[in-house]
């Protein structure tokens, strides 16, 4: 395939990945990499580099809206970013020493787990913890979320386990060039019992900061191919915006099952490819 056909095809695929990611509630980064590897035969390291740029673009674009509505908790975000950025630097370093086929297998496994996590039912009750941990209070993590009836205070628990889970999410982000948003949400929502809306907004802020920690390593190792980065990053960014708009009109509940099956099949194919099996 020659230019500009290659660019056009990659950009179209990336827009679709962005739309799909927004509709299913996964990030665009975790969908666009398998598409580039399986669909275009691109080396997984270049695909990860391009996806990482897309992750930062999407996080920055969506973050502006999140910050304006005052849902995100800057203190929680910054405190946990210590864990995610440190993890990401280690993960990015691992990515440079691991065999690309091993990366494929790990990527497929992480994608499967992500699908599993997104199947988890969220009760939406947001009862929260009755009281905060002493450590959470010392770190001044508990905050208040804006509600129609005025700000509502919430408690924070499980600071240390949440911090450790975030370090793991950081390693995955650096290792695979993804935002690892699903893992971050689990750490804050399930372990630290932070209200879901605060969790998603804060996680979006952290995704960009975490991904930035891998940039230096990826750049030096030559993971960023501009010819790939430009159509992928802009395509996923545009697709994510489009997907957010479509959410209001598309019956996502019925489509979600179909999308998740498709994504699971892609995950299995990534693992098989890494193991040397071609279908």
């Amino acid at each position, binding site marked *: 395939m*020659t*230019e*500009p056909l*290659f*660019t056009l095809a990659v950009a179209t695929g990336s827009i679709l990945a962005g739309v799909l990611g927004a509709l299913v509630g996964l990030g665009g980064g975790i969908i666009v990499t398998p598409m580039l590897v399986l669909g*275009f035969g*691109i*080396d997984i*390291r*270049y695909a990860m580099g391009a996806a990482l*740029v897309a992750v*930062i*673009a999407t*996080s*920055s*674009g969506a*973050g*502006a*809206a999140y*910050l*304006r509505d*005052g849902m*995100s908790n*800057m*203190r929680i975000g*910054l405190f946990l*970013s*210590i864990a995610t*950025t*440190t993890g*990401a*630097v280690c993960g*990015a370093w691992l990515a440079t020493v691991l065999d*690309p086929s091993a990366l494929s297998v790990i990527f497929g496994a992480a994608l499967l787990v992500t699908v599993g996590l997104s199947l988890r039912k969220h009760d939406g009750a947001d009862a929260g913890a009755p009281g905060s941990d002493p450590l959470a209070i010392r*770190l*001044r993590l508990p905050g208040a979320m804006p509600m129609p009836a005025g700000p509502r205070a919430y408690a924070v628990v499980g600071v240390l386990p949440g911090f450790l889970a975030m370090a793991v999410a950081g390693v995955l982000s650096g290792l695979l060039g993804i935002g690892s948003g699903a893992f971050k949400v689990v750490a804050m929502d399930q372990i630290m019992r932070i209200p879901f809306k605060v969790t998603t907004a804060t996680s979006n*802020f952290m995704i*960009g*900061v975490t*991904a*930035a*920690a891998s*940039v*230096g*390593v990826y*750049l*030096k*190792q*030559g993971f*960023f*191919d*501009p*010819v*790939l*980065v*430009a*159509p992928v*990053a*802009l395509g996923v*960014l545009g697709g994510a915006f489009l997907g957010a708009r479509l959410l209001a009109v598309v019956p996502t509940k019925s489509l979600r099952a179909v999308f998740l099956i498709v994504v699971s099949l892609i995950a299995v194919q990534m693992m098989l490819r890494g193991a040397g099996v071609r279908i």
Partner: protein
Amino acid sequence: MNDEQIEKALARLMLGGVLLAAAIIVGGYAWFLVSHWGAVPGAHVFSGEPSYLVDPVEMVRQALDVGAVGERRSVVMIGVLLLLLNPVARVALAACGFIAQKDRLYTAISLLVLGVLLFSFFW
């Protein structure tokens, strides 16, 4: 500055930064495509990247050298770097906000995150 003002300033910074970076990437890439019409892309085999796409100083030098053989890709990478620096700027701005609030604990925490980010970039 109170928390709300910090958050509003961050929101403006993020959106402005993304739009500027996207514009540079689009411009540089369009320029590249025009000069590489019919070329065959080579991202199928990993070969790292040359110094003008890895070293920021070389990147700027190449991008400004309009008469050069056609390394428009450096312009794209400058846009990419600008995009990637966005989260770093966010953390730096948060640190400034906490300094203004005389919040010692969170000044230290944001500077620590900033330190990890800078370390990852310059080690």
